[in-house]
């Protein structure tokens, strides 16, 4: 359960989010809105990457300001550009990074890395240099780097923006099969058609919130 209580974010005198109050418990939630509407800020607040200027963000009752480690153990974050998220030169090493941060021993890390690569049919990529991966493969490695840490919630910030249609569809199929609660910030409205809930932001405020069809229609109306 994620709750925003009167959350405002101000940066350099500009209000990016203003008095946002939300409770999020659905399994798949989409966040849409124009550029600069506050979508990415909302996503980053959930993981504690940004702290609110006013109000509180809580994940399972933990405040992002007071217990950021506890929050990040629950919430994984996939960035728009996987090149910025992948920090090791080979796939297996990169997947191991998060587990090393959790303090796991080498054997346990190797097993978890092997298991997750096998689970997603990417065994062949284990020793591949991350720099030589295709865009789709990089996005999958970035996602696995998060999933391997077994978060309850995965937040994805525009995960399909840099992907072609084929890779975008492949990623959507992967996301559909995940058990975790997903919060996806995207411009890819098609992706959200079967989501449980969509939130539309406009100028730092919640413009619409509800079933995908209604919210997408409301978004399209203000985008005309």
């Amino acid at each position: 359960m994620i709750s925003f209580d009167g959350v405002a974010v101000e940066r350099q005198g500009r209000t990016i989010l203003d008095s946002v109050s939300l409770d999020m418990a659905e399994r798949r939630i989409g966040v849409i809105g124009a550029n600069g509407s506050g979508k990415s800020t909302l996503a980053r607040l959930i993981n504690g990457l940004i702290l609110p200027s006013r109000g509180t963000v809580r994940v399972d009752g933990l405040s992002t300001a007071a217990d950021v480690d506890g929050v990040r153990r629950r919430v994984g974050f996939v960035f728009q550009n996987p090149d910025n998220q992948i920090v090791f030169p080979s796939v297996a090493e990169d997947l191991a990074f998060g587990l090393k941060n959790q303090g796991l021993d080498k054997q346990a890390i190797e097993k978890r890395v092997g298991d997750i690569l096998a689970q997603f049919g990417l065994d062949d990529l284990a020793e591949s240099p991350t720099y030589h991966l295709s865009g789709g493969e990089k996005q999958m490695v970035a996602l696995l780097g998060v999933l391997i840490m077994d978060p309850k919630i995965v937040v994805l910030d525009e995960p399909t923006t840099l992907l072609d249609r084929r890779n975008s569809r492949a990623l959507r199929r992967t996301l559909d099969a995940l058990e975790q609660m997903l919060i996806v910030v995207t411009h890819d409205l098609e992706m959200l058609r079967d989501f449980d809930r969509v939130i539309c932001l406009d100028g730092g405020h919640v413009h619409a919130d509800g079933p995908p069809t209604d919210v997408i229609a409301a978004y399209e109306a203000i985008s005309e």
Partner: protein
Amino acid sequence: MIDAFYLDRTTTLHRLPAIAKLAVLFVLGTVLFLINAVVPLAGVFGVLVLLYVAARLPPRVAVRQLKYAALLLAVIAVAQGFLVSWPSAAIVLLRFSSLILAASLVSMTTRTMDMIAAFETVMIPLRYVGVDVARVGLALTLTIRFIPVLAQAAREVRDAQRARGVKTGWLTLITPVTVRMLRMADDVADALDARGYGRAER
């Protein structure tokens, strides 16, 4: 050197602990500069070639490592040949070629993470003078990881400038590439945070 990364094989050389390989490399680097005769240096070079075979690394990989330094080696060897003697040129050539082959052999048979862990072990005494060893290890990793990304950014900026008719050179590249890398550094820092960097120590 960007391509000199780990190549996965199941050989004894791959299985050796990273710290042992780094120690041998350190000793070899010293010994190579103590040997001043062509025959033993040629022997070392020959052994290294055999080690490439033992590590099941394709010959083109060894050749590629030397190709990167070929021009520099050629200039040094020719200068030695004319200024000192041709046997001396051969000594310099064999010494540096062996060193490059040995360093590349270590990097190609050792996972980056194991290499960084070995560096961290070697640097442990520095903790007592306040050095954050894990942070230095991560900095080394990030440097290795982002060299090709930096090269790619420079290529993209250069292409964009050419498309707009700008005459490109190092000076015209520095500002846009630096701005881009600084923005990227912010994102990478966020990604490290999000992936729990430093959590194990807390």
